């Protein structure tokens, strides 16, 4: 990836210039005197898949919005690739545009339609180009949102609990789809989730956000294909759950009973 940075500070340049995608130092954000994000440092390498775990209300979305450039109220130093895409928790499709129109929204050029159709094919929705969003299921709509994010060939892909509203079966299929797409397009990914298993299944590295700071930053060493039955998997799950303040023995982990594994 070429790094077209305007003027970065010395340490940022050191990381980004050779091979970096995201460099953030001392990110802070307050809402009405309440400091939600309290000095977050974050580095993501190109092609790296980073999961950001945290309880509901811990500030995950706030951080993601900051990286998306949607929040002018943050302080700190942030460098992100110019080309980045966001998939929100809701598909956020324009109801008056058909599926293809949604995918190529904001892309220009004569090849846009062809690229859009290709992206739809990648997410398994070939032939749905002229469907209205109202006819799509939740999973299909979210796949359209994924196609819309990918058609722009982002260097940074920001995913904000994109599968949070989907049923367990659809979610499993979406996991393998995301893995496949990331292998092909290789963007740097920040994947925000509150689901520990999801984070372990997908990520190269997991960050835990608590009290407005990154309290844990750990690489995921579980061998592929990652199985929940793998003891490394369950060890990491216990670590992460403990970090999140969940007592497994009394509260149970999120998806341990789930019999279907991602392959």
């Amino acid at each position, binding site marked *: 990836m070429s790094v077209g940075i305007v003027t970065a500070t010395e340490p940022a340049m050191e990381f980004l210039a050779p091979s970096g995608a995201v460099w953030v130092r001392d990110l802070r954000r307050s809402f009405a005197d309440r400091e939600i994000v309290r000095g977050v440092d974050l580095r993501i390498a190109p092609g790296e898949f980073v999961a950001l775990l945290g309880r509901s209300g811990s500030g995950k979305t706030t951080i993601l919005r900051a990286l*998306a*450039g*949607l929040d002018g109220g943050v302080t700190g130093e942030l460098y992100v690739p110019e080309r980045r*895409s*966001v998939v*929100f928790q*809701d598909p*956020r499709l*324009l*109801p*008056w*545009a*058909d599926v293809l129109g949604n995918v190529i*929204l*904001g892309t220009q050029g004569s090849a846009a339609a062809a690229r859009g159709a290709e992206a739809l094919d990648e997410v398994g929705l070939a032939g749905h180009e002229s469907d*209205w*969003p*109202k006819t799509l299921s939740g999973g299909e709509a979210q796949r359209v949102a994924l196609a*819309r994010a990918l058609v*722009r060939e982002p260097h940074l892909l920001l995913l904000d609990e994109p599968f949070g509203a989907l049923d367990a079966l659809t979610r499993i299929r979406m996991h393998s789809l995301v893995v496949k797409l990331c292998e092909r397009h290789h963007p740097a990914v920040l994947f925000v989730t509150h689901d520990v298993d999801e984070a372990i299944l997908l990520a190269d590295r997991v960050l835990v956000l608590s009290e407005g700071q990154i309290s844990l930053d750990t690489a995921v060493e579980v061998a592929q294909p990652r199985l929940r039955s793998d003891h490394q998997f369950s060890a990491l799950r216990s670590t992460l759950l403990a970090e999140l303040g969940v007592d497994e023995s009394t509260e149970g982990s999120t998806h341990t009973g789930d019999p279907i594994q991602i392959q």
Partner: protein
Amino acid sequence: MTVVDTDRIVVAATRSAELNPDIAALPLTGAAPVFVKLPSGVTDELGGHRARPGRGRQRLIGVALLFVLWEAASLLGWIKPQDLAPPTAVVTTGAHLLSNGALLTALWASLQRVFWGLFVGVPLGALLALAAGLSRTGENLIDGNVQMLRFVPIIGLESLFVLWLGVGETAKIAMITLGVMFPIYVNTYAAIRSLDPRFGELADVLGLSQWARIRRIVLPAALPGFLVGLRMAMAVAWLLLVFAEQINASSGLGYLIVQAQTFFQSNVIVVCLVCYAVLGLLTDSLVRFIERVTLRWQPGR
């Protein structure tokens, strides 16, 4: 099973208990279950209600019935012809007015006024709504004025218009223009204002240009409101037309009515009123047709 009456339902329940000992083993607490047959096969695959074949016919029969009663009341002498002409007389009068060209001349004059009123008023209302909906400054400058003027009865402005513009066509068209502007403005503006702010965020993320934002997001979002406004505008236009033409005009349907009034021709008055009704119905169906074609994306269509 098609279960309608209660006896059979209980029979059915008991029988299934005989066939299935598991059910029979269940303790019978309270009343036996009551079954209902749910409707099926009444909607098409898109979820819309299939037009019932009898519906249009029944509506027509309703209208025909009214005319029959009206005719009968006239024949029986309950309604005097100088008060209200019977339908048959209205039809012959209509045919007569058509053949001597009086009706078409009047229609043409009226249609032109409505057309120009809409032609100027609709874009003006829509542009004002866009200006107010798209920028804070526009909103501050425009919306207060419009909300204030909205409550001035347009009909009361007739005298001012005549004062400014004389008794010619311009005054009538100006009144229709103004009357049409308000429903267009109010509904279009409301639609733009109620646009989901998350779409603005989406536009930011996708880096849409200002023009793309307007074209891809604001305009389509405003369309349903605009079309509601358009339907109301059509109704207002016909209303103001009748009014303007009856005050002072030397042509048009309203003029024909005033003339008929001086000669006690209730049949001509009714013909003109029928024309208004038909024209109103036609313009309304036109907007509804546009709605059907352009708003197919809406849920529930």
